[in-house]
């Protein structure tokens, strides 16, 4: 136990405001906590960035410039499948974390591969949706509404793409170096990233696709 409760013995200056009990700070946190926390802060900043795109989408929702509205464009079934892919991938990503913690390489590779494949299916579905929209003349330059839609959803898609690149790098790193402490820290960050993308997707499908297509 590094916490020492020093109740005023010896160094009276420790408690200038006479609160009685001062819990001494134990010193710098271990590296895993520091890294994880730093990445957590980064994720929050990323979420703030997304919130701007959400705000723009909410404001521009009605600005269709006499073009197609959300209700005419969105295919709920496609979105549902995309969502299931991401939810499952979050689950497999969790399994990968557990496998890494118990140093089980086989399960780790399997779970990471499953995560990657589910991510790729998601991206393929999204790409198909985008391509279809552009093909029918509802690309991002058609109206401010579509501009906001493509930017918001596309930004999430770009994050997933980056996540998959990262995932592959992590698999390669574990393959080459094993479950070293620094690699475990990166895995922690990767898992945080992947789960955070899922949370953003929850907002995307609720706000963009479901709310965006209610009349």
């Amino acid at each position: 136990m590094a916490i020492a409760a020093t109740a005023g013995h010896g160094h009276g200056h420790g408690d200038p405001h006479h609160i009685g009990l001062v819990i001494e700070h134990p010193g710098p946190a271990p590296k895993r906590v520091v890294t994880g926390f730093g990445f957590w802060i980064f994720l929050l900043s990323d979420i703030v960035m997304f919130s701007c795109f959400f705000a723009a989408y909410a404001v521009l929702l009605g600005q269709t410039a006499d073009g197609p509205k959300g209700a005419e464009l969105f295919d709920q079934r496609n979105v549902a499948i995309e969502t299931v892919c991401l939810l499952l991938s979050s689950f497999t990503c969790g399994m990968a974390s557990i496998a890494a913690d118990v140093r089980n390489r086989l399960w780790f590779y399997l779970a990471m591969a499953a995560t990657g494949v589910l991510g790729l299916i998601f991206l393929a579905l999204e790409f198909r949706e985008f391509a279809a929209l552009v093909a029918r003349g509802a690309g991002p330059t058609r109206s401010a509404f579509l501009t906001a839609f493509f930017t918001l959803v596309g930004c999430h898609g770009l994050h997933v793409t980056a996540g998959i690149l990262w995932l592959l790098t992590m698999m390669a790193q574990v393959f080459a170096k094993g479950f070293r402490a620094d690699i475990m820290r990166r895995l922690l960050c990767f898992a945080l990233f992947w789960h955070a993308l899922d949370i953003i997707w929850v907002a995307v499908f609720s706000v963009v696709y479901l709310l965006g297509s209610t009349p």
Partner: protein
Amino acid sequence: MLGKLTWSAIPFDQPIPLVAGGVVIVALLAVLIWVVVKGHLPYLWREWITSVDHKRIGVMYVLLASVMFLRGGSDAILMRIQQAIAYQSQGYLPPEHYNQIFSAHGTIMIFFVAMPFVIGLMNLVVPLQLGVRDVAFPTLNSVGFWLTATGALLVNLSLVIGEFARTGWLAFPPLSGLVYSPGVGVDYYAWSLQISGVGTLVAGINLVTTVLKLRTRGMNYLRMPMFCWTTLASSLLMVAAFPILTATLAMLLLDRYLGFHFFTNEAGGNVMIFMNLIWAWGHPEVYILVLPAFGIFSEVVSTFSGKPLFGYRSMVLATMAICVISFMVWLHHFFTMGAGPDVNAIFGIASMIIAIPTGVKIYNWLFTMYGGRIRFTTPMLWSVGFMVTFIIGGLTGVLVAVPPADFILHNSMFLVAHFHNVIIGGVLFGAFAGFTYWFPKAFGFRLDERWGKAAFWCTFIGFYVTFIPLYAAGMLGMTRRMQHYDVAVWRPWMIVAVIGMAILTMAVVCQVVQLVVSIRNRESLRDRTGDPWDGRSLEWATSSPPPVFNFAISPDVRGEDAYWEMKAKARQQQFAHAQPEYQDIEMPRNSPTGFVCAFFASIMGFALIWHIWWMVILGLIGAWATFVVFAWRDHDEYVIPAADVARIDRANIEERRNLVSLAGSV
């Protein structure tokens, strides 16, 4: 092959930027050749460019800020002269050129002077004050610095290749859209801010994590020096606000590059989204700048009054209150743009509320000085000058925060005077106070007091002579950013302002002379003890300059003003404490990652600006490869053996003992 880049991008027909750019390039080449010929290159590469030491990075940030300050200052001189002579005439700067100058001036001063200056000081000092050996992510820290430098490089490149934005420092659409700004100016602006914005975000994350997770033993939250608190608040704001800037500029760039319709006048775009989002970043930004300055003044005032900071807890509370409230006032920048009375009233009141915690701080500083034995050194002069000046700026701020008043004052010279009043009187004075206060810590010798005081007085007087006339001109109806004008009553004020500008120029000269003189006389100004000011916080507990590892033994903190108490105890015990047990210390290895990343980012940014797509891809792949290579390395730390640590530390303790016994014998 080269996108939009042709020979016509080089402004052969415009002598001013060409000559200025030429001089800069020649100067840079001269420095480079000198460095290479003298054989300093390996040293620079090993000890500075690839350094991940927070102190070195902090110094480089401040150096970048100082150099860019000269560039931004030159712009200011050009503009003041133009407005002094452009009464019923075109002056000497054509409009398209004048517009580039005021845009570059604002952009450079905020992003590449004020930001790197405060980030540099935080980097240098905060780990020392917290009693730790480095920031949370040393290599990322270096990446952040070099990305900031990349942004600065791109802005300055626009001087000789192409042009800069003519839109003002915030590039409002539709003026900044493709229709009205078809050139590369806005692209220079946006990409350099995107790249340096990543750097700022990294710095913010790093500092938040450092303060929250890396404090030394016993450094409880309520024992942290005030500067650490303001650093925490400021970096929290960086982390929360800069993504907004990134997103907003991304939307602008999408409009410009891919024909999107966020801010266009067709297809349902809405320029007010830009206004709204940019100010949701913009107001927190001004507090990102000024909060660290508040921290510096707290340290300086308490040290030179020889007293603990008055009302420490209320100060902490005020800092965190400002951190939160600064996010709730952004609409006051566009009161006049039609949000209506309800919205305006609420944001007006919120804006005035922010003056309350600021007022609390002013009183705390005053009461800290009250009854103290004050030493009016240069840093202290800056602090007192700040209190006077900042109160005026805050008052005019509250004035423009009253919506009906703002309808008259918005975008007038009065506004220009307001924000220079708070930014010069607050941020710049703070930066200079911190610079003179911590210079001995960074380099081991003090700055010359005579020239320092001369610089202060010139800045102080020059500031008032320059900017009080702008308040007057604003109330006489002069709007901001005028290339010429026909109203006779404004003329005298512009002439007074240019005189003020001359005094401010003298102030800068004094600063340069101060530096040169101090370097010359460094032996007589040497700080041997590490504690030249009789300081109170932990940065003074180690030698000047500190060893790479900062502290041989991690300090154990027992109260506020940690070092003050250690000194008191040491005097009592006549340094009788036992010989400490030294241990091996692990430090992060230097890494070229930051520099290489920034190299590729520069290439990518330049290519994006000129639509050279193959080069963009090259830059992207390069940056990615750098990252993977970095991730792949096996050893990122090296060990300093206990014997070395002991040798370095004992030498320092010896110096200190001499000092204390000397002081005792007098």
